[in-house]
């Protein structure tokens, strides 16, 4: 697990180091197309954050990765059986799922 996280950051940091300092072109905000044209920054930022939230559907059951004002836009994946096993009463016993 720790190795996976380390590799993730190593890749990005390697890219940063390889890039060196800032490019001479005018900053785009959220990067460029192959042609060099700036991409839509609003769309790019929203898509990136959406992808991260979707890739971590069970990172936290009480503290999602978005700001509170964005809760309506990121309805979390509800696993009712898991909620029952984690928080139901009486506790679920192995072999006898309690809905």
């Amino acid at each position, binding site marked *: 697990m720790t190795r996976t996280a380390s590799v993730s950051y190593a890749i990005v940091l390697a890219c940063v180091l390889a890039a060196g300092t800032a490019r001479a072109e005018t900053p785009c905000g959220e990067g460029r197309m192959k042609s060099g044209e700036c991409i839509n920054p609003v769309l790019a930022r929203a898509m990136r954050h959406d992808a*991260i939230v979707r890739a971590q559907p069970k990172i936290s059951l*009480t503290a999602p990765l978005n700001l509170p004002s964005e809760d309506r836009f990121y309805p979390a994946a509800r696993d009712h059986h898991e909620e029952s096993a*984690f928080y139901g009463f009486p506790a679920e016993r192995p072999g006898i799922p309690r809905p």
Partner: protein
Amino acid sequence: MSSNGFRVSIAAGLLLMTALSSLSPAVAQEQTTQQLPLPTGQAQTQSADKRWQVTLDSAWNSFSTTTTSPTVAGWSKSVTNYFPVGMQFVGIPNDALKIEFGLRSGYLDVRQRSSSAADFGYSGWTDTSINTTLTYYGFDGFQPFASLAANLPTGQSNIVSATVKTPADSDVTQISGLGEGFNLGPTLGVNVPITKDLLATLSAGYTSRGNFIRSGVNAIFINQPGFGPLQDIKPGDVTTVSAAIGYQSGAWSFQASSSFSYEGVTTVDGANFYQTGGRYALSAGLGYAWNEAWSSKISSSFSHTGKNRYPLAPAAGNFQLAQEFFNTNSDAVSVAFDTTYRAGAFAIGPTASYLYRDHNGYDSDTAQFLSAKTKWTAGAAAQYAANDMVSLNARAERLWMTTNAGPFAPLPGVPQFNIDGWIISVGGKAQF
């Protein structure tokens, strides 16, 4: 007016408002951020000369419900006050790199009353999540990003209060339980622009979930994992891949995404407990700005989870997993619709949503599926931008929820429950 009549009135009002707004001439759209079927918060961009930005975000959310049944005497009431707080830091150290850091926690106060039991309640902090994302802009044609998120167990997983008997409904509050263990989740992804306004995004994430303690069965005379006074639960790790496409230009915006999650085995006291089936999720949203003042958004989602696996014969010491015959999990469909009227710094509009679950679970004790669930909400949302840095938002929605209703209900022997209530939210956001 009956609740059905009220809902029809709301729907007719939305259609009329939409039709009237379409009579206005379409003009060049300046408020595309409001039509994107994604958070308006995400729509905010940083100016090139502002390389560091901090956002503070908080709200008071109140969920109050009353549950009754046409066939079961009595009632129960639940009031949940939820105070989430969040912070986001965005930095651009150079033109090739963006660093984003997010932190979120919250405080819960749950009060429950019923006609047949004593009042009880619980107050406490939720867990805290942190998230760091690095995005690299050195390549023309694609922008990779890496993220590392964590759940810090600042909440309570082992609640002694009787509130644990009936935790708040996550279909209402959007939060499940009161706390869990330490989770760590790296994500790798990439934005690939097809045109400057049409992007594809691919991502893959892994969530390592830590163990936590909860109250157990307390049948200590049974020498078997999971039957002690406490249960040591280790949730299964989750691997998720997702793909999405998004478009935004002029008056139109569109976004569609899909994901698949594979979950590992959840254990209790070191023995196999269950393994949740694979989960597919689809979602799509469409936004349109009718004119400079009016815009509308509609979004929908669908999710399906496959059959779980359970131990074959734990009483005999056999914890080998086998797939269940019926699917314990439910499919869920949701649709949400918003229309916004904006005049200067003020915006207001109606909002409505619908949720349907085909069933909530399978009870092996009674050998039947538990009931379906239908939820409607309708209300209004408003936002006021006090200045360039501070904005306030408020929302009020009426809630109607019914269990054991729907195309395949009612199920024999399962009582129907009607849950009516209100969802109130007041919040603010400041950016520096």
